[in-house]
């Protein structure tokens, strides 16, 4: 049955043409709106022409499939399919599309250049074609969502109008949301079936229906179909979507896009139908929508609104027919798709003409138009009669089929009557609202206070309506000859089974269906006659404005979201840190608690060195310093001093554990940072207000105790566990491989020189950051301290200056010494840099920041750069020896005067470190100095 025709390539080509054609109207726009319209029409006509050669194949019962592999890992292929159902929709989409292009040219105001309009319309048309021509279901979902998106843009075409914007968003949310459900449903469906190709999914139908996921799949797919086809309770977006220009309403919201939902039902009919779940859910929703839409249509004063609700009702009818799942009901459903598209599109266009001519759509004012525009009125009346199901018109035929099915249906065990009764009620309502449309608009006295004086529209604006109304008549009178083949092919493709025997003719003899039709016609007219009573009664029902409701809901959601966020995140850094601590505590605690046993032998057997008095005192001082910092952090100066104590004890600890390098570094870092901190502190309030509530202090104490205790436990466990390490390598390789006997320094500049390079970059950035952040900042220093005492006004004490100036060369000499011996003995670039920094800081303290600044180079960033350049540059030199970055070299040299010397290339690296450290200290110092300048000026 699946045919590989030599012309199959036309199928993807037609789609490609359509999508590529989207740009044409935009390009044509500048040459006039007429050309834009012609371009749009041409694109549709060409797409149709490309497909026509394939129609013959399809009519002969074949299915054209063109697979193009794309993302096979995810089953997502560009596979196209043309079968009877696709052909029917293609004809509807392109045929009505052409008429809409013509109609819109006259409908939209002359000042509209139309390029954007036609581009959007073509985009929608292409996506819609994509849906009906997809073999791959994922590809279908893609096109499905594009129709939602393009519908959003088309509804909001008059974006300056509030109604349009809200309606567009509403439509997007409902149909887009349904699309997400459909996506989920299709993925599940494909996974159960093992493929997303429709042919294989259909082949796996029994497997799917037996799968435990079937109910979920069905629910998700139906959500997609029902939202798109505006089934109750997702119908509310459609009446609001009437804010779109009428050509859009005619095309998207009656003939095509809303049909995508029922198309989906037809498409997946062979896959998902045949179960009770399908029967009950689809037909129940369809029946409710059928009656609800018809009922609501009666009460619309806006005739476009009436047509919208009527569309909802008819979509419900089609849904119901597919839900009943008998072969004949499917035929009726497909037939009604054709008929509804024809008469509803013509009605919308006629309604657009009337709106266009009268300037309003209120049926309480638009009356008696038959006298003013008789041709349009006649056309509209014929179409409306078809909508009501009057014989000799196409609407009658499919409605008659529906009534017959309603009578014959035996699927519901409990009551055979329920369906015929429902059908008749719906029929009565349909006649009533059709009667209202005809009577109110074209008769019923004279127009009331119209903004414009209506008359017949331009000749060509009416042509699309005339064509469609003619089709109503032709199909209504010669159904078999006009659409017999199309219907049979489409219904056959939907069923994927032999067609039932049926006869497309007007007269089926006297039967119950005919009685129902007569009852409906008579009842409908009677109901309309009693409209005044009904309207009064209906007015008492609570009305719901879905537009403001939607906006209110949105605002409510946004406000609730804000509230929740504000509750979770108060912007407090303390809370962020507390959350981090809690996270660490819980996660770390959980992780390490598992398979941990404190009674393990390795713990008890731990060796520990005896603790002497000095160590005890030092530890006590550190503990007191830490606690004191925390307790006194409100008094900033004290807190900084106490931190200094902690740092000092840490460096003493390093001394005790024979790590002179670390001790030296720690000491100098401590001095430099404390001094810089004190300088910065000068500008800050001396005390911090107490803000923490008792509860928060409690929380923080708990967290701190937990983290501290946990760290102590972990450290204890760590120190008492045996472990194997690679660290012996460093001890062994330090001299032969690194050329230095100070392992710490060799690690820093050689084994792990890359880390050091990164860290000096961090240091440089800290300085650059201070430079960038404090730039232009001028702070007024406080005149007095917190107790109200004046700051001392004396300039820098002479004594201090006298003392410090001779110290400078000495300190510099020391730093050179420390630097040079670094590779073999405790020292190195980092410490040396800090020592230099301390010496220069002392000068500044003694002589004032500006004093020092005047005597030092003015700009430090190049110095930072130079330092980094030394470190990275020596690393790059190794490239010339075909060695990786940072490969060191060292050798033994005999130099005059100095004698034997061991030189390593890493000394250059260390020089870079030195320069960066010095430049960093000086840059920060000078920035703080500049702040001071504000004091003097």
């Amino acid at each position, binding site marked *: 049955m699946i045919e590989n025709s030599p012309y199959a390539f036309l199928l993807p080509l037609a789609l490609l043409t359509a999508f590529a054609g989207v740009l044409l109207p935009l390009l044509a726009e500048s040459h006039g709106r007429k050309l834009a319209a012609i371009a749009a029409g041409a694109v549709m006509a060409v797409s149709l022409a490309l497909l026509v050669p394939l129609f013959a194949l399809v009519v002969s019962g074949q299915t054209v499939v063109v697979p193009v592999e794309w993302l096979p890992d995810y089953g997502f292929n560009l596979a196209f399919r043309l079968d009877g159902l696709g052909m029917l929709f293609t004809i509807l989409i392109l045929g009505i599309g052409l008429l809409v292009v013509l109609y819109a040219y006259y409908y939209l105001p002359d000042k509209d250049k139309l390029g954007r309009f036609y581009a959007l319309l073509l985009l929608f048309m292409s996506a819609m074609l994509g849906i009906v021509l997809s073999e791959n279901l994922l590809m279908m979902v893609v096109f499905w969502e594009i129709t939602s998106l393009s519908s959003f843009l088309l509804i909001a075409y008059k974006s300056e109008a509030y109604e349009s914007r809200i309606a567009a*968003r509403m439509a997007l949310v409902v149909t887009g949301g349904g699309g997400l459900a459909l996506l989920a449903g299709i993925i599940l469906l494909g996974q159960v079936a093992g493929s997303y190709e429709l042919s294989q999914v259909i082949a796996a139908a029994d497997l799917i229906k037996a799968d435990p996921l079937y109910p979920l799949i069905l629910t998700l797919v139906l959500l997609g179909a029902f939202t798109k086809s505006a089934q109750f309770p997702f119908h509310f977006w459609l009446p609001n979507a009437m804010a779109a220009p009428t050509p859009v309403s005619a095309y998207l919201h009656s003939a095509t896009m809303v049909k995508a939902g029922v198309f989906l039902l037809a498409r997946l009919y062979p896959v998902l139908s045949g179960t009770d779940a399908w029967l009950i859910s689809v037909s129940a929703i369809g029946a409710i929508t059928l009656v609800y839409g018809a009922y609501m249509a009666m009460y619309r004063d806006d005739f476009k609104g009436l047509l919208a609700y009527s569309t909802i009702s008819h979509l419900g009818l089609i849904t119901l027919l597919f839900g009943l799942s008998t072969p004949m009901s499917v035929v009726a459903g497909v037939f009604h798709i054709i008929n509804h598209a024809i008469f509803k599109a013509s009605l919308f266009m006629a309604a657009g003409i009337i709106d266009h001519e009268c300037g309003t759509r209120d049926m309480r004012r638009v009356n008696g138009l038959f006298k003013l525009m008789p041709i349009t009125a006649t056309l509209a009346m014929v179409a409306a009669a078809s909508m009501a199901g009057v014989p000799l018109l196409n609407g009658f035929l499919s409605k008659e089929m529906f009534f017959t099915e309603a009578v014959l249906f035996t699927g519901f065990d409990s009551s055979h009557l329920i369906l015929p009764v429902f059908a008749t009620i719906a029929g009565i309502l349909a006649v009533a609202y059709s009667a209202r449309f005809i009577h109110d608009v074209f008769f019923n006295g004279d127009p009331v206070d119209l903004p414009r004086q209506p008359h017949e529209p331009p000749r060509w604006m009416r042509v699309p309506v005339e064509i469609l109304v003619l089709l109503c008549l032709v199909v209504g009178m010669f159904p078999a000859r006009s659409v017999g083949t199309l219907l049979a092919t489409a219904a056959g493709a939907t069923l994927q089974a032999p067609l039932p025997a049926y006869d497309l003719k007007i007269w089926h003899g006297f039967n119950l269906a005919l009685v129902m039709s007569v009852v409906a016609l008579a009842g409908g007219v009677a109901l309309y006659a009693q409209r005044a009573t009904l309207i009064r009664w209906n007015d008492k029902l609570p009305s719901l404005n879905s537009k403001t409701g939607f906006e209110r809901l949105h605002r409510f959601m946004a406000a609730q979201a804000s509230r929740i966020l504000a509750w979770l995140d108060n912007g407090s850094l303390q809370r962020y840190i507390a959350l981090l601590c809690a996270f*660490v505590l819980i996660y770390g605690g959980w992780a390490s608690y598992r398979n941990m046993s404190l009674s393990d032998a390795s713990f008890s057997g731990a060796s520990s060195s005896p603790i002497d008095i000095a160590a005890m005192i030092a530890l006590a001082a550190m503990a007191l310093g830490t606690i004191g910092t925390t307790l006194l952090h409100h008094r900033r100066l004290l807190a900084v001093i106490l931190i200094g104590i902690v740092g000092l004890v840490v460096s003493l600890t390093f001394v005790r554990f024979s790590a002179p390098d670390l001790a030296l570094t720690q000491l100098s870092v401590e001095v430099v940072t404390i001094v810089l901190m004190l300088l910065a502190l000068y500008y800050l309030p001396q005390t911090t207000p107490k803000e923490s509530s008792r509860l928060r202090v409690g929380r923080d104490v708990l967290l701190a105790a937990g983290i501290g205790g946990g760290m102590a436990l972990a450290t204890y466990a760590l120190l008492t566990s045996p472990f194997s390490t690679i660290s012996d390598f460093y001890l062994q390789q330090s001299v032969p491989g690194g050329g230095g006997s100070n392992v710490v320094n060799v690690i820093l500049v050689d084994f792990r020189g890359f880390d050091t390079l990164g860290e000096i970059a961090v240091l440089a950035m800290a300085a650059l950051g201070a430079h960038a952040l404090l730039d232009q900042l001028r702070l007024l220093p406080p005149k007095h301290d917190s107790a109200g005492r004046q700051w001392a006004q004396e300039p820098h004490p002479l004594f201090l200056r006298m003392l410090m100036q001779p110290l400078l060369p000495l300190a510099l000499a020391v730093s050179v010494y420390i630097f040079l011996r670094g590779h073999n003995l405790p020292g190195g670039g980092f410490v040396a840099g800090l020592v230099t920094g301390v010496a220069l800081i002392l000068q500044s303290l003694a002589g004032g920041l500006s004093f020092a600044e005047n005597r030092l180079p003015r700009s430090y960033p190049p110095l930072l750069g130079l330092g980094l350049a030394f470190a990275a540059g020596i690393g790059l030199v190794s490239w010339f020896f075909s060695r990786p970055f940072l490969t060191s070299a060292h050798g033994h040299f005999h130099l005059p005067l100095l004698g034997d010397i061991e030189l390593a290339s890493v000394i250059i690296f260390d020089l870079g470190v030195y320069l960066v450290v010095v430049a960093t200290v000086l840059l920060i110092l000078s920035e703080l100095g500049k702040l001071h300048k504000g004091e003097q000026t």
Partner: protein
Amino acid sequence: MMSFLVMHSAILPVLIPFVSSIVLLIAARRDATMQLCIAAVSTLLLLAASAQLLWLTDHLPPLAYALGEWRPPFGIVLVADRLAALGVMLSAILAAAALLYASAGFDQKGRHFHAIFQLQLVGINGAFLTGDVFNLFVFFEVMLLASYILLAHGGGLDKSRSGFAYVTLNLAGSAVFLIALGLIYGTLGTLNLADIAIQLQTVSGNEASLVRLAGALLFTVFLLKAAVLPLSFWLPHAYAAAGAPVAALFAIMTKVGIVALLRVETIAFGPAAATADLVGDWLVIAALATIALAALGVLAAKRLQTLVAWLVLSSAGVLLLLAPLGEREITAAGLYYLVQSAIAGAAFFLLSGLISDARGAAADHLSAARSNMPVRLKLGFLLLAATAAGLPPFSGFIGKLMLLSSVSDASMAAAIWAVILIAGLLTTVALAKAGSRLFWETPPETEALPPETEALPPATQAAAHWRQTAACFSLMTITLLLVVLARPLSDFCQRTAMQLHQPTDYIHAVIPQPETVNRVNRP
């Protein structure tokens, strides 16, 4: 020359920006044109080096680059595999766009922008490439400090405040990182990731619980960078406050945390029995909660850039699913998602900057303003909004489709599906509203409801510099290319995931003969 470039290919993405930053500091402090030239040359070289690395890693086993020629695990090693190369390539692309945008004047709003920008790239690329956990710490520091300065670039209360919280919190994270490193070295005696993977295989008893603690702390730091709930609150503040090009570059930063998590988990901690359960279902829940939180943020956002920041968090939430799910197919799908979300997020930040400029005083506040927006901004917004909401046919949809279809067999698949799909719907709702506000509404509203916010005065429009527009639209073009080239990219992601989930290749590339590594036992 060629073999020379190949030989050092793994370090080039780190060294190129490093050297440029040095040149910028020394040679071009005052001359803005000169600065720009250096930065541009550097970024172009970086693009070339990244492309080369991408090609090499795709055709060769992981490349190990031993710094100082010290044999791993003794020295530091950079390891370029497909994942690292992908990250580096991505950061080069974002950097190029961000730099182009910033060159229109933003770069001169403060000092040292270009030098710090290059150092930021050093940090990001180093973090992607390093095969040593201490070195990872160093690059995290480089990244942190650079990002702090970039975040503050341009000045203002918002930037200072959120920057302060950002840097303080992340410094606390650094402390946690250091503790974790201490524990790792104290138990396993090594800092090399491949060696850690080897050592973890045989760990047991109390040592195991210490290693587990170390792993938990390490993952905490990565999760902080990736901004998982409850550690996510810093992100929207910081990303919303940053200048547009800076925020665009930051779009890669949460990804660094995620890639680090993925790498350390798949290579070292996941395969070892003692630590296999450190990353588990709880992270799936936390990731889903992060996505949900981000959806709320998107709904509540009052500025476009804030909204985009929440979108970035949302994609971080999605990507956090990869590590705990730990399936090759899911990782492959996630990597595509990573690429597309980073580029789309960066483009969105730039677009937000353009929109903000075009609206004058109303800036990017989601309120009506009397302004005539250029069509290209409307189209750009439509494209990026649809991408962010996961609507077809854009890259966001493809990423989402791949993820949904690959997670369907995972634990909690139903919850993952529900959260991702509903979050997508809420994003659609919020973006439709935002677009309506920004482009369609005009101040004097005769609405059925009173307007939420006061209309702002008419915009004083400044024409966007062509470079800003070009930067933004190049990234958008790339998101479209990600759709057209979905197949090759998806195939590459598959190969990347395969490599990642085969840790022996990585370990073997770093330490070919583990038995020859000399270890001593310490009591």
